[in-house]
C-alpha cells in the first residue's frame, strides 16, 4: 500500500461522530436497563485473547481473525465474538457460581477485513448468554429477551426466524448415515443454495423415499408455522430417537412463544442453518427495519464449554449495534438539538454557574460558555434549543 492519507483509517474501520454516538449510547442504555431487569449481570473481557484458545474455539474462519504476536511471542487474536470468552469465564473464574448463569455484555468485536462497504472490521454487539440450562424454557427466555430488546430499540416490523440445527443433523443422519454427506447437506443450507441442495441430493443415488424427504425438507421453508410443525411431525419416527426429542422441544418452544404472544412475529424455519459451527440446538436470527442483513442472531451451543473443560449446556444471542443503527429510522425531532446554552461574561460568572448547575441537577444538558470564547455567535447559538444570556455589564449579587 502507498503512504496513507492523513484522514484514512485501516480497512474496515470507522469513526463514530457525536450524533451517531449519541444514538448508540441511547441504545446501549436501553439495552443495559432491559437486560438488568431480566436479571442479567454485565461482564467485560479483554479485547486480546490467545489464538490457541479463543481463536480456535470461536468458529470464525481463520482468515477472518486479526492475529498477531504479543510481546512474549504468543499468537493472539482480537476477540471475534463474545460467546467464546464468556464460555471461558463460565468454565474458569465463575466455575463455582450457581447455575444457571445469566451474563450480558456490550463489546466491540473484530473480524477482518472485507474490502466492501457494510462489513466493518470492528463492530459493537450487545448480547446475553444463559448458561447451565438445557431446557427449551431457556431458549424461549433468550428469544423473548432478544425480541424485547429489538422492540425497545425502536426497530420497525421485528421478525424472527427460528430453526434447530440439532434436528437438521439428526434428521439428515437418519436418512443418509454418513457424517460427511450430512456436513455437505448442512453446508448447502448454510449457503442458502436450494438449487445446489436438490442437485446434490439427486447425485447421491438414495432410495426414492429418502431423496423425496430431503427435497421436501428444503421446500418446507415456504410453509407457515402450523404447516411446518405438521410437516416436522411426519419426519419423526420412533419415540426415543434424537429427532423425536428435538421435535418435542420445538413443539414446546412454539407453545411457549404463543403464551408470550410472540408467535405471530416468528417464522419457524427448520432449514435455517447459521454460520457459527458451535450451535447444537435452536438457532435464530432477528430482522427488521430497512436493512438487507439480519440485525441479531443466536442459538444453543451445548458443546462449547466442554472445550474449556467444563461441559455445560448454554444458549444466547448477540445484537449488532452497527446494523441496528442502519436499520432504525431515527425521527428527525428525536435527533434534534437537546442542549441549551448559557452564555455569560465576567460580571455574571457566578450567577451563570449557579443557573447552569441548577439546570444540570434537573437533568438537562447545559453548555456553559464565556462570550469571549465564541468566534461566530450566530453559528454557535444555532446548535442549541434555547440560549440563556448572562451578559449584563453590572455585577449581579456576589
Amino acid at each position, binding site marked *: 500500500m502507498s503512504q496513507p492519507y492523513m484522514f484514512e483509517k485501516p480497512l474496515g474501520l470507522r469513526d463514530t461522530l457525536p450524533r451517531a454516538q449519541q444514538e448508540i449510547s441511547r441504545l446501549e442504555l436501553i439495552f443495559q436497563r432491559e437486560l438488568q431487569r431480566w436479571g442479567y449481570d454485565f461482564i467485560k473481557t479483554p479485547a486480546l485473547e490467545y489464538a490457541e484458545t479463543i481463536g480456535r474455539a470461536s468458529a470464525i474462519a481463520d482468515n477472518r481473525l486479526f492475529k498477531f504476536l504479543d510481546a512474549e511471542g504468543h499468537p493472539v487474536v482480537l476477540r471475534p465474538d463474545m460467546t467464546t470468552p464468556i464460555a471461558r469465564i463460565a468454565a474458569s473464574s465463575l466455575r463455582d457460581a450457581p447455575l444457571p448463569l445469566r451474563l450480558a455484555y456490550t463489546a466491540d468485536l473484530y473480524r477482518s477485513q472485507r474490502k466492501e462497504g457494510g462489513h466493518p472490521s470492528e463492530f459493537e454487539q450487545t448480547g446475553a448468554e444463559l448458561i447451565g440450562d438445557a431446557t427449551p424454557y431457556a431458549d424461549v427466555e433468550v428469544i423473548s429477551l432478544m425480541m424485547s430488546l429489538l422492540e425497545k430499540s425502536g426497530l420497525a416490523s421485528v421478525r424472527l426466524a427460528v430453526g434447530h440445527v440439532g434436528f437438521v443433523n439428526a434428521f439428515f443422519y437418519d436418512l443418509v448415515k454418513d457424517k460427511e454427506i450430512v456436513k455437505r447437506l448442512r453446508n448447502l443450507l448454510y*449457503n442458502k443454495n*436450494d438449487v445446489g441442495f436438490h442437485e446434490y441430493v439427486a447425485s447421491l443415488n438414495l432410495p426414492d423415499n429418502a431423496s423425496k424427504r430431503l427435497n421436501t425438507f428444503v421446500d418446507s421453508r415456504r410453509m407457515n408455522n402450523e404447516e411446518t410443525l405438521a410437516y416436522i411431525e411426519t419426519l419423526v419416527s420412533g419415540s426415543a430417537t434424537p429427532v423425536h426429542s428435538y421435535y418435542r422441544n420445538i413443539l414446546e418452544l412454539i407453545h411457549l412463544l404463543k403464551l408470550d404472544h410472540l408467535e405471530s412475529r416468528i417464522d419457524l424455519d427448520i432449514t435455517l442453518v447459521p454460520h457459527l459451527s458451535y450451535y447444537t440446538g435452536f438457532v435464530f436470527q432477528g*430482522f427488521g427495519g430497512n*436493512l438487507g442483513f*439480519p440485525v441479531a442472531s443466536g442459538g444453543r451451543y451445548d458443546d462449547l464449554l466442554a472445550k474449556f473443560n467444563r461441559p455445560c449446556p448454554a444458549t444466547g444471542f448477540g445484537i449488532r449495534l452497527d446494523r441496528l443503527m442502519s436499520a432504525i429510522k431515527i425521527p428527525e425531532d428525536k435527533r434534534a438539538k437537546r442542549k441549551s446554552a448559557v452564555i455569560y461574561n465576567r460580571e455574571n460568572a457566578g450567577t451563570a454557574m449557579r443557573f447552569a448547575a441548577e439546570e444540570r441537577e434537573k437533568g438537562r444538558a447545559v453548555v456553559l460558555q464565556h462570550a469571549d470564547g465564541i468566534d461566530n455567535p450566530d453559528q454557535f447559538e444555532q446548535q442549541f434549543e434555547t440560549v440563556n444570556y448572562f451578559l449584563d455589564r453590572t455585577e449581579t449579587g456576589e
Partner: protein
Amino acid sequence: MNQSVITIAMPKGRIFGDACRLLRNAGFQLPDTFETTRKLILDLESEPFRFILAKPVDVPTYVEYGAADLGISGKDVLLESGRDVYEMVDLGISKCHMAVAGLPAHQNHNPFLKIATKYPNIASDFYRRRGEQVDLIALNGSIELAPIVGLADAIVDIVSTGQTLKENGLVEYNRLLDISSRLIVNPVSYRLKKTLIDQIVEKMIRATEGTKIGMD
C-alpha cells in the same frame, strides 16, 4: 426496503429476453416496452412490483444488500461473487456451461499454467481442487483472444453454442459445470415479505416446469 413493494433485479443483456419471457409465462403483466426501454427502473401499474435493470454481474450485489428483494442471475455470476442470498429456483433458462479451452495443440512450457478468465474465483477453485497451482489473469471480455495472442495457455469461460470458440480456432479441454439462471432472494426480504415472495417463487417454479416440458 419498501415493505409493500417487491423489487426485482433483472440482468440486462444476454439473459434479459429469456427472463422476460419466463416472467410473462409466470403471469407478470410486463409492459410491451419492457424489452426496449432505456429506463433503469420500471414500476408495474397493476401489481406492487418494481423492476430494476442492472448489469448481470451486479444483480447479486443489489439482492445481497437488500436494494432488491429478488433477482434473476446466472449461476456463473452467483458462484463467482459468493453473495449471501437464497438461491431458490433453477429457472432453466439461458443454459450454457463453464469450460476450460485453448488452442488444439498447445504445449505448455511454463512452470505455471497461465489462465485468462472473467471468473478468477471459479477458475482458482477449479484448479485448487485438481491440486494444481496456476497463474490467473483477469480479463473483462473477449477472453478467446488470450491464448491466440499468447497472453495465456488456456481460458476459463462460459460456452453456450461453442461457435465463438470454433471461429477463433479454440477447443474445449474440460467441462467444469452446467450453468443456467437462478431466482435469488435476499434473506431478510424473505422473512419480512414471506407471503408475497413465496407466491412469486411458486409462480416461477410453475412457469419453469412449463418451459422444461416445452423444451424437452
